[in-house]
């Protein structure tokens, strides 16, 4: 049992938002010395291998994602890590902040988060943050803000936290899609140095497919919820005399066949988004190219200046005069730093994800078409 307070202590120490939490009625534990807490906290050493979502979390995320305006829903995941599995047992949505720069709104969110955690703790719910969730459409989730948030989390949370990505459009098509991710070490390293120049990318072997690594994700329903779902799905006893084939019409959860819909809904929208992302990529490439040319020009000018000075010095030495002092070239010519390639990499990732989503839709469409043909022919 010694691990329990230490885990709380470790997480409280890493998260400033929680550390202010007063625990009014809780029994007081002896404070564990910082040196000891590491020794007691064994869970922190077991690497994370999978994420387990509770049924409650699944339904909460789906509801929030569907209701949020603009498809921009995000919230925090709460739970515990146990033996390499991150068990997410609860979550709550974060208010949609309209203005990223607004200091007041950030403070408001922090306050909201702290008091929500405190309130959840009072009713015996888990109150340690283990990551966050993000709703997306059509499989593309790369964005600056997601990467930034996850980078912060990965530094502060014990296991680095996870981001669970939920795809609204795929869910609407009949396949509830949840995927767990975290940033790769290489990306995090480059991010910490805030260096996304070409050399840094080569050093870290970064392409868009190596920004995040996927963690296998499972969905679990607790026994009570399973029992309840079963009750909902089984038909209640039909009135006597009805034909057996009509009996199942009174369930709360009738079987659904929305996946069999033939219409290629969303393909056009998906293709549009590919084109949009490509346009954005083209613009970004143009910007990068412009900056590159500027750098090259400045470099050439600086080199020219150095050459000239050397020649001058050579003639001066030949004439027996003292050479002119070597001036600091970098002060005379401002060579702009190499532009960050992060944005263009993320855009490429978006294009790739959109294309993959189109591919999946069309392959499922093919199967459906042949199934229809077979059904029609028979």
């Amino acid at each position, binding site marked *: 049992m010694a691990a329990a307070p230490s885990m709380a202590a470790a997480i409280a120490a890493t998260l400033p938002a929680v550390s202010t939490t007063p625990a009014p009625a809780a029994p007081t534990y002896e404070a564990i010395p910082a040196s000891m807490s590491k020794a007691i906290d064994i869970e922190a050493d077991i690497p994370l291998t999978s994420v*387990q979502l509770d*049924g*409650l979390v*699944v*339904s*909460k995320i789906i*509801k929030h994602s569907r209701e949020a305006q603009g498809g921009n829903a995000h919230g925090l995941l709460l739970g515990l890590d146990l033996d390499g599995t991150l068990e997410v047992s*609860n979550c*709550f*949505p974060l208010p*949609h902040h309209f203005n990223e720069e607004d200091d007041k709104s950030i403070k408001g969110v922090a306050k909201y988060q702290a*008091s929500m955690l405190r309130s959840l703790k*009072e*009713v*015996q*719910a888990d109150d340690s943050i283990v990551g966050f969730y993000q709703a997306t459409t059509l499989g593309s989730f790369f964005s600056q803000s997601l990467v930034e948030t996850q980078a912060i989390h990965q530094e502060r949370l014990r296991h680095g936290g996870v981001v669970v990505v939920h795809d609204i459009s795929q*869910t609407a098509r*009949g*396949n*509830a899609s*949840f995927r767990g991710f975290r940033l790769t070490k290489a990306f995090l390293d480059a991010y910490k140095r805030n260096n996304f120049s*070409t050399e840094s*990318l*080569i050093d870290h072997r*970064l*392409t*868009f*497919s190596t920004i995040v690594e996927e963690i296998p*994700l*499972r*969905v679990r*329903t607790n026994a*009570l*919820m*399973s*029992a*309840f*779902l*079963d009750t909902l799905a089984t038909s209640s006893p039909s009135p006597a005399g009805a*034909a057996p*084939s009509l009996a199942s019409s009174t369930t*709360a*959860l009738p079987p*659904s*066949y929305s*996946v069999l819909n033939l219409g290629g809904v969303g393909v056009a929208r998906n*293709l549009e988004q590919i084109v949009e992302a490509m346009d954005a990529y083209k613009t970004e490439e143009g910007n990068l190219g412009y900056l590159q040319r500027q750098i090259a020009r400045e470099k050439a000018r600086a080199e020219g200046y150095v050459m000239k000075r050397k020649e001058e010095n050579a003639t001066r030495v030949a004439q027996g005069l003292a050479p002119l002092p070597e001036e600091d070239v970098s002060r005379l010519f401002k060579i702009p730093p190499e532009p960050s390639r992060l944005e*263009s*990499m993320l855009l*490429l990732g978006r294009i*790739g994800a959109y*294309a993959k989503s*189109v*591919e*999946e839709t*069309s392959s499922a469409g*093919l199967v*459906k*078409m042949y199934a*229809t043909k077979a059904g029609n022919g028979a």
Partner: protein
Amino acid sequence: MPLGPPSSAVHLQNATPGFVSTPGRTPTSVTVHPVALFSILDHYLRRTDAQERVIGTLLGTRSDTGEIDVRSSFAVLHSETAEQVAVDMEYHHTMYELHHKVNPKEVIVGWYSTGSNLNTYSALIQNFYTQETAPHQAIHLAVDTGVVEGEQAGVRAYVSSPVGVSPKPENAVFVPIPCELLFKETERSGLDLLASASSTLSSSHPSTDLDILERALRSVSDMLDRVLTYVRSVLAGEVKGDPAVGRYLMDTLGSSAEDLEKGGFNASLQDTLMVSYLANLVRSQAEISSRLALTSAAAS
């Protein structure tokens, strides 16, 4: 889609739509979103040993016709002893404010408790929530978790009305009203995922589109087999045919797909294949482009 066993719920019809804006009109029916239900079950699991039942607040929307849509719920602390009942009102207000920040449309519509036991304390709590929802009436959701033996899992909804010569808060009649599970079609797949997770007993992975399609096709094929057996047995004279079933079958199977035969299949096939090739092309281009970004500086 009824929730739970058949009950004696009063199905009231709102006959006078012109009468709608009157506050405090009696709610006629309740729909419950799965999230609210699952939150209640989760709260019940996390109760302390001393607690016999748990209560909490229901949030949702009201329609003009007296229908109440329960969209979410949160737990509220309370204590019940033989002498008194106490609800942590401050906690309730804090939580409501927090929820209100994220979802301003949802307002307090009533409260839930687990178990089907309606007693004096229920009337007192109901009285408290009626003050919270004034001028509207509060509803009460009794969630039977099915844990106690002999009780079937289900959800019942009630409205209350005062009873007795002089109205007292602890005296109330709870009138059952119909209660249904309601969710949007787009959220349906999430429930399917949970149902598949619960039927396999262990945890399940989210599957690919094709897996789900295969499952649906198999179940359609099973159903066709079932229909075929039924039809054969009717034809053989073993079972008396039901005209209603026959009519349904006629409607379902009679739908024609003439469009497919007239070359529509090939045209559609070409479109789909083209889209698929295009998507492949875009993907490989994106991959190549990101690789090229890595080498461009090395070459120069």
